[in-house]
């Protein structure tokens, strides 16, 4: 489903964010991306939806050579992906409902389908009662849940989540995690970049660990810390 082979990313300012990344993610997998702040997690995700373009290497997403994608085909790629951005990236002049509907609208979806699907995802993230509010009128966590709803609305084949629970309380975090798990069970490939040790340690799924732009470990059923659950670390 996703394959990176020898991928490097050097930003225009000279920062080498990713260095010789080799990673295969199969259809239906659930992958955590962990690592220190500034280690390249967001950069890796950015390559997949072509917000950034790799400096070297080969990237295939859903059969598409993303690194070679022509500019006018990028929109089509992004429509098949659901992305939860680390900084939410909500449209401030659109309501919660409109933000979510908009993501369907651009795919050319039928209004009938939008009217059915948008309320459904808003309900999933627990924001039905705020659907008429603007992002500036939302709390941080509500904004984050709006971003999640928008990423889900198109039933994407691949879901990329960048720190999706950074502004959520544990209860909400648990719910959103359960939601991601359910979506994954329906066959969607899910990649989550996160610092939330509790989430990673509870789920015990594949964990890809980045350090300074390189993949250092890749475990099938991993913890946030190499081989250690948080209970051991914190209350051991």
């Amino acid at each position, binding site marked *: 489903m996703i394959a990176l082979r020898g991928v490097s990313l050097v930003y225009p300012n000279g920062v080498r964010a990713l260095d010789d990344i080799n990673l295969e993610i199969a259809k239906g997998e659930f992958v955590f991306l962990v690592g220190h702040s500034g280690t390249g997690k967001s950069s890796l995700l950015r390559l997949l939806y072509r917000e950034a373009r790799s400096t070297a290497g080969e990237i295939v997403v859903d059969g598409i050579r993303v690194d070679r994608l022509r500019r006018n085909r990028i929109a089509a790629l*992004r429509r098949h992906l659901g992305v939860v951005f680390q900084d939410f990236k909500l*449209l401030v002049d659109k309501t919660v409902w409109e933000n979510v509907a*908009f993501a369907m609208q651009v795919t050319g979806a039928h209004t009938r389908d939008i009217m059915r699907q948008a309320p459904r995802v808003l309900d999933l993230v627990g924001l039905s009662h705020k659907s008429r509010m603007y992002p500036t009128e939302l709390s941080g966590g509500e904004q984050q849940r709006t971003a999640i709803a928008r990423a889900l609305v198109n039933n994407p084949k691949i879901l990329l989540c960048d720190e999706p629970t950074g502004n959520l309380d544990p209860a909400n975090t648990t719910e959103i995690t359960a939601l991601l798990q359910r979506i994954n069970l329906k066959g969607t490939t899910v990649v989550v970049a996160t610092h939330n040790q509790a989430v990673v340690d509870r789920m015990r799924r594949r964990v890809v660990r980045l350090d300074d732009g390189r993949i250092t470990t890749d475990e099938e059923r991993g913890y946030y810390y190499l081989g250690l659950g948080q209970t051991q670390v914190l209350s051991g």
Partner: protein
Amino acid sequence: MDWGKLKFFLGEVTRNFSRNTGMQMTAIGTVAITIVLLGMFLFVRAALADVGASLLAKIEISAYLSPDATPAQIHAIGRFLAQDPRVESAQFIPKRQGLAELRERTKGTIDTALLTENPLPDKYRIKVRATEQVPSVAAEVRRLTGVANVVYGQQVVQRLLQLGAVLRRIGIVVIAIFFAVAGIIIANTIRLTVFARRREIAIMQLVGATNTYIRLPFICEGLLDGCIGAALAVGLLAVARATLWPRLLEALPWAQLTATPLDARVLAAELLAVGAAIGIVASWIAVGRHLRT
């Protein structure tokens, strides 16, 4: 067609439009001012063209006949003038009438009682259709037998011809400048609105919107700006024409300005079209430039 989509799109445009009223007012105001200036210019140009025409219409050629011209020669000259397509009218003025007109013109300062004999010759008074042809007609008439001298406002005609040419050239340049100014200001206004929404545009692109999809509302916004601005301008011009123009006509009755130099409805339609075109082109360029990066 999915009516929901159309509704969504129209909602999008009207929302954009009503959200940042300050910016829209700017764009609309700029269009309106530009088009008022353009309309004024076209109107005044048309009015002045009429003034020029009426001034030129007064230029006439006096062909003085030699005292010994025979009636046959005089008749021949008259026929020649009647046949010439360039000549609008030719009138024979006998010396007696000439003296009466002279007396009239000098308001009695010439004591005609002192004249033992009329010192003036007979003449033809000739009006020519197109001012440019005055010199050539005059030269040809001069060559006819029986004509002693041909007089016309040589200087006046030449000056008016020169002035007309210069004004036309200046007019074209000014019109071109106005169009450029209007285009630049509107394109910049829309570029600024695009700039102010660069984050939103980037987000739309990240969500998978095509450039066309993003561009369309802006184009429609530009179109609306252009149309509303032009409509405002047409309204202002109509008011000015109904209130100021009559006063100007009254103040300068002798200038012989035409009361209605242009068909108001045609002008209005043209200006609206210009406004719409400016809006579309400017926003197209403005958005296109931003999205390419």
